[in-house]
């Protein structure tokens, strides 16, 4: 495994630092927002851009150091983009169901759905 050029290291570092900053912003939102339905939004920042940046940095670094295109890290991005919406929808439905059962002020069920 050979040493990578300077510009690759700078690009990888920039992508990694961007991902770290995005993750920190997402955690701040998760800790500081007031309502559960507001708090559902900030983690998406880490799930999308945070993960994309790290995967891109990994692809650039390993492609440069091995001298061939290595794309397998992108499998994590594909996996996350499939699984995250499922978790988010299930959690939102669970939160809506539980808050409705406790008699809080949330939107009523639509029509005759069995939520």
């Amino acid at each position: 495994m050979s040493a990578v050029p300077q510009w690759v290291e700078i690009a990888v570092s920039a992508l990694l630092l961007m991902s770290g900053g995005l993750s920190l912003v997402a955690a701040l939102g998760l800790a500081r927002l007031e309502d559960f339905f507001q708090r559902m939004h900030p983690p998406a920042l880490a799930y999308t851009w945070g993960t994309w940046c790290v995967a891109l940095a990994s692809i650039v670094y390993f492609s440069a150091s091995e001298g061939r295109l290595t794309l397998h890290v992108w499998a994590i991005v594909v996996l996350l983009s499939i699984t995250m919406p499922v978790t988010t929808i299930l959690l939102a439905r669970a939160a809506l169901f539980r808050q409705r059962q406790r008699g809080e002020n949330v939107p009523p069920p639509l029509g005759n759905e069995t939520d």
Partner: protein
Amino acid sequence: MSSFLSLATYVTIGCYAAAMALALWRLLRGPSAQDRVLALDFIYVNGMLVVLVLGIRYASMMYFEAALLIALFGFVGSTALAKFLLRGEVIE
């Protein structure tokens, strides 16, 4: 591995650690069960990102598989917990 890139990976892992600490605060504080599940899911994804960054730091491909497994287990766990909150049981 230059000291520049090495420093960048350590700063990034520090950012993830701070993010996980904030999410842990949300997980312990609640106030509702779905908040805790959301925070646990966030901690899972951050742990996966830490493993990926360590893979770059030590220039090893082996970390990728561990990250993939963490992502998969995080999804299964969060889905099971959300299903439990929705119905009171995981498998009907």
